[in-house]
């Protein structure tokens, strides 16, 4: 008996026409302009590239701006490209495919938030056991860890004004929970959900 393949799995190209819906449906009210901000960026294109560990820059644990796109070395031999769909597609097209390389679009399977502001490290410290000091995780650092018990990939990419900012990505099904958990941890710092 032939195996039937659902259409959504038949071709990656077909997925380009899917409308993106964020897993974050509700956002807590409150906060102030002086507090940190939490923004839902789940709609950004997220492409995971796997290759030999030294196949390209940046190395594991670091992020690199490639044009308007961000490339994160999130595991040895695994990179996450984050940005607009056209930038990610152009980057993927230009990859050296001579070795063993795999490219998977995670846009619809991962939620992504941006937590920024001078109190952002303090918010993260409440719900993640890593050391969020500037010495251990400066801007450009990429780590994976549990945040409020959810396994997350985190890249620190500070704002233009120098304020700490973190891109936090988790599985889509945890998106609403994690958004609420981060917002809750930020309440005492007057966090504002955008």
């Amino acid at each position, binding site marked *: 008996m032939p195996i039937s393949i659902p259409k959504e799995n038949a071709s990656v190209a077909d997925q380009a026409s899917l409308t993106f819906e964020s897993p974050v449906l509700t956002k807590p009210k409150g906060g102030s302009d002086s507090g940190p901000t939490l923004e839902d960026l789940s709609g950004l294109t997220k492409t995971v590239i796997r290759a030999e560990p030294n196949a390209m820059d940046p190395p*594991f644990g670091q992020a690199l701006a490639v044009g308007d796109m961000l490339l994160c070395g999130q*595991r*040895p031999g695994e990179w996450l490209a984050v940005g607009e769909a056209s930038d990610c597609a152009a980057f993927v097209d230009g990859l050296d495919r001579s070795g063993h390389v795999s490219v998977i679009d995670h846009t619809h399977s991962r939620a992504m938030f941006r937590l920024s502001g001078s109190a952002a490290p303090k918010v993260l410290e409440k719900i993640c056991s890593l050391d969020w000091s500037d010495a251990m995780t400066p801007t450009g650092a990429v*780590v*994976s860890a*549990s945040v409020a018990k959810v*396994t997350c990939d985190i890249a620190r990419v500070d704002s233009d004004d120098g304020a700490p900012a973190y891109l936090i990505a988790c599985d889509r099904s945890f998106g609403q929970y994690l958004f609420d958990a981060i917002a809750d941890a930020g309440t005492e710092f007057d966090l504002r959900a955008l």
Partner: protein
Amino acid sequence: MLLVPCPNCGPRNASDLRYVGEAGPRPDPNTATEAEWRSYLYIEDNPAGLLRETWYCRAGCRRYFVAERDTTSNEFVNSPLPGNKIGGKA
């Protein structure tokens, strides 16, 4: 809290990792007896002292590695090396 030294991620809370078990050589599946397989899968030495064990960095780099721990003090000794999967189930 147990701090586990991941060779890729550095010291991590043990809750970020999964304990796989004691690390040891895997017997040759072509020649091992049933008793040897059973011993490999289920029988642990459980020494009081230095023990080589496999950990999986579940929330971090998602790699298996072997670390050496003193079971009487919970201190890790001899920093583990990345890719050292001897006895691991990767």
